[in-house]
């Protein structure tokens, strides 16, 4: 699993590095070919790696945005499911509503983890994170709204008065028809 993660971590499936960055010729068995200047290569080696890093950062940022926008599709699907479930309380509609509430919640909990692979000091993750959070919150609002339409939220006066005990009476009276 660790290996997989490392590969996945660089964002590629596999890579072969053709550039030889070693500076010590004696470390090799084979001498440098004639006309080959090791110094010049050293020079543009840094520019190449810089370019590479830029590309990777771009790629990461792009991916982060993709991840951030992923809940939107979810949101649409959820909306469709909710519409299908109808407005009466039964097992199906309650299940869908609770999953609609639970998914964004768990996603929000793991917001750091989701964006961890794209962490880079060059990449600005704040905006995608915010979008991600906003979309998830949107999904949650949708869930809550569904909960309300199902009548499972205590938003009506009836929900608060239904368990109120009767008021006490100040006066007390008794009597009736006399014994006979």
């Amino acid at each position, binding site marked *: 699993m660790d290996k997989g993660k490392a590969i996945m971590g660089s964002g590629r499936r596999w890579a072969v590095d053709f550039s030889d960055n070693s500076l010590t010729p004696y470390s090799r068995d084979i001498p440098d070919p004639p006309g080959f200047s090791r110094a010049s290569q050293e020079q543009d080696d840094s520019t190449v790696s810089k370019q590479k890093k830029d590309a990777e950062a771009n790629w990461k940022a792009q991916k982060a945005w993709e991840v951030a926008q992923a809940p939107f599709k979810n949101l649409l699907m959820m909306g469709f499911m909710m519409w299908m479930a109808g407005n*009466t*309380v039964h097992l199906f509609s309650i299940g869908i509503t609770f999953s609609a509430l639970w998914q964004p919640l768990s996603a929000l909990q793991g917001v750091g983890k989701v964006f961890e692979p794209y962490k880079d000091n060059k990449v600005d993750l704040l905006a995608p994170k915010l979008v991600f959070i906003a979309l998830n919150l949107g999904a949650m609002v949708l869930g809550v709204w569904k909960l309300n339409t199902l*009548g*499972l*939220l*205590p*938003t*009506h*006066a*009836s*929900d*608060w*008065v*239904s*368990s*109120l*005990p*009767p*008021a*006490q*009476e*100040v*006066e*007390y*009276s*008794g*009597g*009736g*028809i*006399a*014994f*006979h």
Partner: protein
Amino acid sequence: MATMLRVFLLLLSLLSITAPAFSLYEDQVGLADWHQKYIGKVKDAVFHTQKTGRKRVVVSTEENVIASLDLRHGEIFWRHVLGPNDAIDGIDIAMSKYVITLSSEGSILRAWNLPDGQMVWESFLQGPYSSKSSLLVPASLRVDKDNVILAFGKGCIHAISAIHGDTLWKKDLEADSFEIQYMIQASDSDVIHLVGFVGSSEFDSYTFDAKSGELLKHDSAAIPGGYSGQAALVSSNTLVVMDSAGSTVTTISFHDGKVTFNQTPVSTLIEDFVGKAIILASKLEGLFSVKTGTLTLFVRATVEGKLEVVNKVDYATAVSDLLAISEDRQAFAFVHSRSNDIDLTVKLGADWNHDLLKESVKMDQERGSVKKVFINNYIRTDRSHGFRALIVMEDHSLLLVQQGAIVWSREDALASVIDVKTSELPVEKKGVSVAKVEETLFEWLQGHVLKLKGTLMLASPDDMAAIQALRLKASGKSKMTRDHNGFRKLLIVLTKAGKIFALHTGDGRIIWSRLLNSLRQSATCEAPTGLNLFPWHVPHHHALDENPSVLVVSRCGPSDDALGLLSFVDTYTGKELSSASLDHSVVQVIPLPFMDSTEQRLHLLIDASGQAHLYPKTSYALSIFRSELSNVYWYSVEVETGIIKGYALKEKASDNYSFDTRSIWSIVFPSESEKIIKSSTRKSNEVVHTQAKVIADQDAMFKYISKNLLFVATVAPKASGDMGSSTPEESWLIVYLIDTITGRILQRMTHHGAQGPVEAVVSENWVIYHYFNLRAHRYEMSVIEIYDQSRADNKDVWKLILGKHNLTSPVSSYSRPEVMTRSQSYFFTHSVKSIAVTSTAKGITSKQLLIGTVGDQVLALDKRFLDPRRSVNPTQAEKEEGIIPLTDSLPIIPQSYVTHALKVEGLRGIETVPAKLESTTLIFAYGVDLFFTRFAPSRTYDSLTEDFSYALLLLTIVALVAAIFITWILSEKKELRDKWR
């Protein structure tokens, strides 16, 4: 919480749709219910003659029951309850095969088949006057091969054929105030004498030919000294009567057309005579008995009219009629009781000095004095005469005494229940063994294995029988301790006999019974009658080890101003803790919602002059009451004058514990158009869970819940009579809802063309009443629900969440809340004897009405059928809420009879008591019979059913665990194999 409740309710309603009724399975009968049959205080008894061969006795009782009892065990062979208006005046056996009864003041004569009690024929006897009645079944009188029964009633004498009940002849005596005393057949002739009195001074004798109905003779003479209403027949032509002063005995002989009088002062019979003497009615040969104070004299009357005292007995004595034991010998018995003994003496009619039988019988408990005795003889194996005596005691119990022992006894006081209260049983204490009812582990296991077999359908018929027996025995349902569910309680029952019983709710057995001394006849109190029971001392919390007690309120005599009596009875032991004769009358008792320091409930007794008296008379109680004095009111409903009055209390200077009352309001019904026929209030101990009713679309309505709500029904005076006595145009029913603090009429509603009788029940914020609709010729039930409009605008959710509302703050009736009522009427098939409503511990469970039907059964009817919001086409939301589409009549579902196949004969009342389990209510229905059951109005949603198989559950769990282990092992093995591959 509320929303979850909605989900829950919805599931519940779904459940209730799938399983409609609250019916029982056949094998569940008797698990939670019991039924007891009684007959009431015996008035008259006739033994089967030797010829019929069966050992039975036929009795008629004051509860208008005619029954045939087994002489060996006292069981009822057959029984008929004739109804409250059909009092039995005479009973006899004709032709050794029919029981003849004369009832309803001599207007109905019936013949019942002796062995099985089937009615053979019934005759209605008509006559111009109402008078006393008398029945004579002559043994040897025949007209055209037909036995004749002579019945006197309504001023006429009728001769009825015993075979088919046809009238052979009828004669009007044309004397409207003739009160018959005796109907006598002159020895073996066809001549019938009727003797009686007109007013209190004239003696009349009529002589008839029994075959033709011809009036042979009519003699009339004024009695010197007047007539007090008591007479005894000494021979077929001699009658002794007591004069109106109770001091002179007059002997009247009336043979051969001559009426002669002979007067003897009682003082010549007994030396130091004071007060009034009473002649005990009996038919003895040449003898009669006179009661003076505690003495009973046996006096012999000679043909010449001379009187001589034969014997004196120091006790109150009951004397039987004469019984022919052989061709020429006749015997009679007299019985008296001394504390726990009964002395029975049987003598030959002619010979005083010779005792045929003299024995003393021990009773196991106090039963008061002997009221009546009936004797019967049998031939012993040695050809001598044996006697058995049927004895009616002061506590209405019936005993059969034979060979010096009580063969059986029946507690027939329980046929005349006045009031019922419940009491908790003692708490189960640690270390106290109740091993007798407890079963061993082995038995428990055995029982469960049996049950398991039953569930898995492996049981043989024998096993099934064993299971049923086990269930009926139901371990611990008759234990004498409190149970967790609150099913086991004591029913404290006050009866007309003045006897208090404690019945166990588990199996209905009598835990204790007590004939209250204060409710017995005494010199200071002529005719004490029990009125009501009140829970007096109900210990809870820290004082659980104390015994609870009840207050018995009674008074001396039937009038309003008779002095009151209080007695306090321990409900665990039945001991009379104390009793008090009050110096004032009692017309009303108001239990107050306050307790004193010893947890005794405060009671206010109102006397006939309108004064209030506080009990218990302790200074602590007084200080509590004084602080609440300005908030305590009372009201009286005066049926005769048609006035409802409300009173407040004020302190009286002279007496600390008495309070003056001052009238603060009154409602006067115009006597020419309205007459009060029913008033009803909420039960004071009813618990209501919530003040709001949530209706469709999450809207809420606020119930008007007040304990001070009085329902009154009035009818047009013309329509207050029997059914059919008035036309629909001149009859109406008006119902009122009245606040008893301010006298404010909350609602008034008129039903045109309706009449009583009205039965009503008030609960929470609704009233349901039952009446007859003359236009539709059907019974109707109406419901009125009251809602509090002044609370209706409490709709702001934020205020409710933050608690910034005044919905739970105390309210006063003087704030005059605006109310809104809704009502609806439905047809109902039955006429109704009584209506009650289920009550549960917290008031959450939905309600069902308990209707005592005319067939003496108890029918449960869901309150949802009586909901004013029912409409023909309810909306989806309303349907979801559980509103039933409107129909014009209420359904009667045969499975919802609470009494299933049983009848509570002569049903008079239904009492409901909450169990500790919220879903369950205990129902006790009483009349001539008693019936008790447990009832769950919304099914037992909070507990497993009794026949839940724990063994099956255990077995399932064990099987599952085993399965988990086995599959785990298998999967391990497979994995290993895969890895080696």
